């Protein structure tokens, strides 16, 4: 029996409350800042209590967008971010399931070779190879398309890697049983492997949705048509204009709106996400 001392618990709560405060603080500041009048931040120290311009600021950003902040209306940017994030998440999961299945459940010539081609890309961020990748996308005439926004980012191998790790832990008996029943590879994949991977797929979905939603430099580079601007890039746009101060109240309102969808995704899928993520690691 482990002792359960009262002071220890109190201390633990204290540490956690402090920790949560630190973690929440930046976003709290964003929310507060989004409720103040334009000049408030530039005239002294930023207030810590909500102001009275919240409604006005959000209305401006949602309905007027472009005219005041150097960015197109927020609705279309949110939509683009959503499409991009969905395409990346779904695309990545689809191709990764297939390739992980091939690598784990088949033996074929060139297997090691393909394995390394895929895995070398595991951690290489797009920022490092951005200029040549841009040229490839331009040569394929994929600038200003959803395909150009998402497909090059599907090329990383993180998901394949995690699915491979998970497939390795699937008991051998599953396959034996399937073969006894006369199931072919496709049937085994569809009826057994995919249903078994549901939590992993969910975790992957959360990770990849957030990854796609949060892209900045890539959309900045390959979109010139403002009907393809994404929200994160829109925020940076609002912050960096030549010869003008950023309109911080509107920037912060946009920050709050931009952070909302991925936070909702993570909160709604928290259980699956946590389970999928940590199970794969074990």
């Amino acid at each position: 029996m482990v002792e359960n001392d009262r002071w220890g618990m109190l201390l633990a709560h204290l540490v956690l409350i402090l920790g949560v405060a630190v973690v929440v603080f930046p976003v709290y500041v964003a929310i507060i800042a989004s409720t103040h009048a334009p000049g408030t931040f530039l005239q002294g120290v930023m207030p810590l209590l909500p102001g009275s311009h919240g409604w006005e600021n959000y209305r401006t950003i949602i309905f007027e967008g472009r005219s005041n902040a150097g960015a197109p209306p927020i609705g279309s940017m949110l939509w683009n971010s959503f499409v991009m994030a969905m395409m990346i998440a779904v695309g990545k999961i689809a191709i990764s399931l297939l390739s992980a299945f091939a690598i784990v459940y088949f033996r074929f010539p060139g297997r090691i070779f393909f394995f390394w081609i895929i895995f070398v890309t595991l951690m290489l961020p797009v920022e490092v190879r951005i200029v040549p990748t841009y040229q490839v996308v331009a040569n394929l005439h994929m600038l200003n398309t959803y395909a150009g926004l998402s497909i090059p980012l599907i090329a990383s191998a993180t998901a394949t890697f995690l699915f491979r790790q998970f497939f390795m832990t699937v008991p051998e008996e599953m396959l034996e049983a399937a073969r006894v029943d006369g199931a072919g590879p496709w049937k085994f994949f569809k009826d057994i492997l995919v249903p078994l991977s549901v939590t992993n797929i969910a975790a992957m979905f959360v990770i990849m949705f957030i990854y796609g939603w949060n892209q900045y430099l890539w959309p900045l580079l390959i979109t010139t048509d403002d009907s393809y601007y994404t929200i994160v890039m829109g925020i940076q746009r609002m912050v960096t204009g030549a010869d003008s101060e950023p309109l911080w109240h509107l920037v912060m309102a946009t920050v709050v709106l931009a952070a909302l969808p991925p936070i909702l995704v993570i909160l709604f899928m928290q259980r699956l996400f946590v389970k999928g993520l940590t199970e794969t690691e074990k």
Partner: protein
Amino acid sequence: MQTKRMTFTSRWLPYVLLAPQVIITLIFFVWPASQALWQSMLRQDPFGLRTTFVWFRNFERLFADPNYLASMKTTAIFAVGTTLLSLSLSLLFAVMVNRMIRSRDLYTTFLVWPYAVAPAVAGVLWWFIFNPSVGILPYMLEMLGYDWNHRLHAGDAMALVILAAAWKQISYNFLFFLAGLQSIPQSLIEAAAIDGAGRTKRFWTIIFPLLSPTTFFLMVVNIVYAMFDTFGVIHATTAGGPAQATNILVYKVYRDGFIGNNLGSSAAQSVILMGIVIVLTVVQFRWIERRVNY
């Protein structure tokens, strides 16, 4: 590399299954990477109108450039700082949350969601909070007698980017630590308690060693994150300044290549980074292979 003991056999199916991923990888990774390799041996004007082949001159110059070596050091400090700060905080939170019963889910929820905030957005938030003139934190620090100015003081700037980068990573580390803690058999801990080991002693002699596989995994992940995934944080807060004090390697590739138009040098830097990434990947992969094998 292992597979299942028992496998399917098909002459064509595995290739079809692999095709989408391999094609995308070849077009959007292998091809651009080889382009970078080629470009790293060229000297070009920005528009690509005049090109000279210069062999390894770009690499030689990089390693002779004190700024590049300084950037390597900066990257090392930044990566280690971010990893340490983020790991220790998340471990602390995980240990504390693990002791809770009713409030566990509530705390977890609060600690998990910063994972969803974009690095570029996090950068803007921290820029705002730490702005030497209007930010709230410099104001509080000033009341404590500390003159915060990350525009001028390299140390302040480094602290700022480490804090901003570590903040983003706390959620992820926390989840893994919590899962690691929950998988430690309760019996082991109780046995130690019966032997009279106090809370602190139990932590260092039993829990921490048992967590070491998780810690190692997270260390690699965090170092990779700090080295490569923090572009948005740096870009929005310090832009590499003051006097290059926070100019980490990835940011330097961007600055030299995309802002400075020095494509040869930037490509050479990309090639070096790719080398580092591949080494880290192999290290991590070997380690995970070993763990799966036992």
